[in-house]
């Protein structure tokens, strides 16, 4: 029970952030320079205001939607791309395998940061760019998991039997292999969502996230850091939400993995 208390609190915080605008409908972009740096608990501004006098709660909420949307979308894309590559490589073997998996190795050895910097510089900061960058970064991970799993499933007798009996490749992949590797992939997906929030907010922190004035959590932390000595809440509040979101999804991923892999369960 104790194990889930913190993730539970985190989950509630995330839900609160997403539902925030429904509770307090405030424009996250409305500036009021006179009312800037309002402290937490100011009437009308539950979490205070930033250096433009913008409502922090409203910005957290809008930021939550952006962070979660980009994380989910990029994970989905990376999942489909990575699984296609990994399964194809493991199933075909030979030259195709070498080509695909070495390609994945090359992708992994490009520093993620430079990949993000260059893609954002070409396409400009925006939500679709961010989704694309994150998808690109996480595809190799899925490809490797799918590759490894497919290799091990492929050697099992029932698949070997299907291959010997001349079952079509398509039906073996879709009917036999995919259902057998879906569980570890789902666990990986949930962990990837957590990583996507981590990396995505990191990019926002470096100013590579989305187009201002739209808020992003990482960008809010970076802005808040400039006022760390005088108004630490500007950094602490978005920081808390980033942590909560990551914790929620990684706890979810760990739980999924435990369900799939009983070995881990034994230890608990």
């Amino acid at each position, binding site marked *: 029970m104790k194990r889930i208390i913190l993730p539970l609190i985190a989950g509630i915080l995330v839900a609160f952030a997403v539902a925030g605008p429904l509770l307090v409908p405030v424009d996250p972009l409305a*500036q009021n320079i006179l009312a800037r740096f309002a402290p937490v608990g100011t009437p009308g501004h539950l979490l205070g205001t930033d250096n433009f006098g913008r409502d922090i709660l409203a910005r957290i909420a809008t930021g939550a939607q952006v962070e979660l949307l980009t994380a989910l979308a990029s994970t989905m894309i990376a999942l489909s791309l990575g699984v296609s590559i990994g399964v194809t490589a493991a199933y075909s073997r030979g030259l195709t395998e070498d080509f695909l998996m070495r390609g994945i190795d090359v992708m992994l050895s490009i520093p993620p940061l430079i990949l993000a910097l260059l893609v954002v510089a070409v396409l400009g900061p925006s939500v679709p760019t961010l989704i694309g960058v994150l998808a690109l970064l996480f595809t190799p991970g899925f490809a490797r998991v799918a590759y490894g799993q497919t290799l091990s499933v492929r050697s099992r007798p029932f698949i070997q039997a299907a291959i010997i009996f001349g079952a079509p490749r398509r039906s073996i992949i879709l009917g036999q292999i995919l259902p057998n590797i879906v569980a570890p992939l789902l666990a990986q997906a949930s962990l990837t969502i957590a990583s996507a929030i981590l990396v995505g907010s990191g990019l926002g922190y470096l*100013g590579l996230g989305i187009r*201002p*004035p739209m808020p992003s959590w990482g960008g809010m932390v970076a802005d808040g*850091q400039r006022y*760390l000595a005088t108004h630490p809440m500007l950094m602490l509040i978005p920081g808390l939400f980033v942590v909560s979101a990551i914790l929620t999804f990684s706890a979810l991923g760990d739980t999924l993995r435990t369900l799939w892999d009983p070995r881990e369960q034994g230890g608990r």
Partner: protein
Amino acid sequence: MKTRISCGMHRRTFLATAMGLVTLMAGFVPQVARAQDDGRMLTFGLSANVGNLIYGPSRGAAQFIVNQQLHRGLVKFDENGTVVPALAESFEAVDTSTYRFTLRKGLVFHDGTPIDSATVKASLEYLARRETGAAIYAALSTLEAIETPDAHTVLVRLSKPNASLLDYLADPNAGISPPAALAPGAVNWIGAGPFRLKANDSGVSLTLVKADTYYDKDAVALDGVKFIFYPDSSARANALIAGDVDMVDFVGWEDFERIEATPKLVLDAVPGPFVYTLFNTGRAPFDNPKVRQAIAYAINRDNVVAAAFYGHGNPLNGMPMSPGNDRYDPAMGELWSYDPDKARALLAEAGVAKGMKISLLTSSTYSFFRDMALSMQADLKAVGIDAELNAPDWPTYTSAKNGGNYDLAVAGGAPSVTGPVYMQAYAVGAPASSFGSYGYDASEIVAHIQAGEAIAGDEEARAEYAKAVRIIGDQVPFLPLAQRSQAFAYTDRVKGFRNIPGFLSITGTGYMIEKTSIR
């Protein structure tokens, strides 16, 4: 049990390797000295890594300060921003396009090489070459001839009158340099300045010591200056507060209060460079001067100062002016004001529909650029203009600005001359001048400014500049919005230093270090 054995070895090997690497690092990691116990050494937290010095091109404010310690030109700025003799013991304007300089006797570079009129001629001619990309190229592009009647006399002839030539020659990038530095990419550490380079810990610090070769060495109080690079502004402020450095340049606006609140620290802030708005005059809607005027009335300058500079700056309703220069007229500073109703009326008059969408170019590289655009965006919305922000990194921003890929753009200006002639570079449109609005034809304004430059008397010249400014007020080729506070900060042990107010805070203040002492 084979696995077990190899595993144990592995762990030990790993630990040994890790420890070995750490020890190895001891020899490599750059050294940073602390400020205390250094006698009359000034430890200076500098806002950027200057890399290798190259003769001619401008590489930003931090490099200016280093240049001013190592190098010296014919003239320099004093604490009031007046041009005073340096390597030249005297100078005179024969007329507005001919200047005569008389060099001091016995001048040498740090390495002992003598400096005579031929050295000066070679230096200036190098700066006048297009491919050098020199900071003062604009002034020397009209160079006709340099004559050296004797070893101590230099006669500079221009093809066009230029009342500001002396300002340009006092620029930090116009120090006289030895022949070896006069080639593209050649390093330029040996100069004729008050300090010489002792150690260059690349990327971390520069150690300079007093040069015995300097013509005015007896007036230099410091034994040396150690520049330590602190690119991050809050880290720079932290270093000063912690006593790691004696002085820092370019204090971040959000750190002003923190430094002022610290005992024994001095914040030396002056109104410095300005920020302004550019218009793409090559296409609708900003090809229409009425719409540009509307913007001039739509922007709340107080909000710009509050948002971008944390309240540390001066709103501008007209041209920024350099204090102490007699060629300005106070009326030049009163052209527009914040008046949203008037802005709406002007927009209606120009036939601009409500909810017009435009793109507002700024850069994400500098937070004050982005914050200024955000503040403007809110003001524009209030008068019915929907501005979408485009905030790429600096090179992309520069390309977009030079290529006219914007409607409105945020820009920053730090003129290196004090006189009104600086306005020319901002009025002339891109691509001819990278500081100006895209596609703007400023020939009328330029004609008046050049007429002013040809006149020796301040009074008569002022009338010509005023005509240029009147056209600017009407046409709005560029829109100055605020002058930002530019601050140095230092411990109260530092004496004799002064941040020169106005544009020269960037290009002139570095000359103060030779007059600085430390207790």
